[in-house]
């Protein structure tokens, strides 16, 4: 299974400013010192090997959209954030090369940042495409139609030509979707959200759990999430806030913290945690710091197998 991140930001798409880019370039030039590069490839190698990720790259700014490339023919995509536009265009290229035009979506929930990419999803205009939108919510179709009403968007939902189907899933059930076992769990978030567990025919398991608040008063209920994450090869988790923020000024905002995610993964003996749904006000340096601290916290609290803690960014590919 190859997991490809098309959008990793929460709440709102963001983009670096000219000032931010200039500052990165200036710092990179200072880091290079008196080094000379014969070509762009040499310079790119320097950037990759010698600069930090925040210094030489960016975590990106598109909102939640994660593809699971499973060797079964159809597309599997979690959420339709603004990253969906790029995925859609890339899928057209793959379709031209013979890929199946069946898209299986799995919605964590229907808030704007998780559906805003759908009006820009090019395959939705293809009458030969099949789009199955799986959701725990009974009102997924209403949410998508509403955002394309004329007051909000110039292209109405009815103009989309693909075969669009809405499939409601129930927590506690196991579904087979094009050869993949899919389970869902109810999460604590405004208007509810749902996490997903995907297991392919090779037994590889990926978890998608975003926009899920683990409240102080309900810590005993986290046992259900530990079992849901059990032995997963990859857990993609909402790690938007520091633990302190999540229990104080950001309490009841519907999100979680990096420390809770590490602890849940430790208890579940998951192999890898991908930090996800980055706070839109965070600069790349802030996200990198959060990543480094999460790695250190995992080391300090490890009481069993090591958990690999990675930080998702737009364009990241993880093979499990």
């Amino acid at each position: 299974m190859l997991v490809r991140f098309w959008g990793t930001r929460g709440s709102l798409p963001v983009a670096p400013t000219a000032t931010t880019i200039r500052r990165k370039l200036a710092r990179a030039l200072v880091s290079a010192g008196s080094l000379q590069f014969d070509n762009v490839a040499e310079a790119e190698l320097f950037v990759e090997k010698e600069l930090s990720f925040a210094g030489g790259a960016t975590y990106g700014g598109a909102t939640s959209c994660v593809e699971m490339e499973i060797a079964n023919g159809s597309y599997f995509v979690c959420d339709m954030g603004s990253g969906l536009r790029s995925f859609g265009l890339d899928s057209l290229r793959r379709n031209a090369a013979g890929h199946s035009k069946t898209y299986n979506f799995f919605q964590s929930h229907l808030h704007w940042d998780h559906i805003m990419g759908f009006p820009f999803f090019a395959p939705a205009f293809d009458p030969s495409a099949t789009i199955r939108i799986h959701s725990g919510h009974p009102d997924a179709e209403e949410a998508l139609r509403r955002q394309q009403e004329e007051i909000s968007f110039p292209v109405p939902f009815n103009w989309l030509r693909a075969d669009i189907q809405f499939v409601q899933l129930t927590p506690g059930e196991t579904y087979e979707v094009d050869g993949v076992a899919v389970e869902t769990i109810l999460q604590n978030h405004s208007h509810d959200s749902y996490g997903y567990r995907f297991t392919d025919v090779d037994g590889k398991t990926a978890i998608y759990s975003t926009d899920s608040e683990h409240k102080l008063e309900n810590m005993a209920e986290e046992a259900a999430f530990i079992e849901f994450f059990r032995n997963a090869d990859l857990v993609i988790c909402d790690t938007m806030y520091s633990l302190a923020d999540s229990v104080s000024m950001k309490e009841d905002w519907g999100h979680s913290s990096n420390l809770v995610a590490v602890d849940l993964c430790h208890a579940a003996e998951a192999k890898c945690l991908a930090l996800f749904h980055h706070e839109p006000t965070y600069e790349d340096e802030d996200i990198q710091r959060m990543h480094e601290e999460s790695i250190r916290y995992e080391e300090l609290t490890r009481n069993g197998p090591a958990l690999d803690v990675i930080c998702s960014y737009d364009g990241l590919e993880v093979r499990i």
Partner: protein
Amino acid sequence: MEYSLAVQDDAVHVRVDGRVDEATWEAFGAALGEAVERAGKSGHPTVVIDLSELDYMSSRGLRVLTVAKRQADEASITIVLASPNEVMSEILAISRYDKLFTITGSTGARQ
């Protein structure tokens, strides 16, 4: 996890040894609740939690601290985190709990 609780002249002192994690957080929470209650009954305005002998505290333990702090705040009692060892100092910084709690270098407890 082991804990001891002592009511002294200046405060109610809680000393915790071992790990506060998924297996022990409820016992830790009970200990904190007992400390806050005893501070209220004895008229002490402060509960001091000695972190010097903790191996580590997971997010469960940190969140239980927040629960205890809310109970303490309602009773006008202050919870102070004292003598964090190196590991606990890092965890408090990583979690940003050093912004939520008063942290001191010593417990001030009578030996």
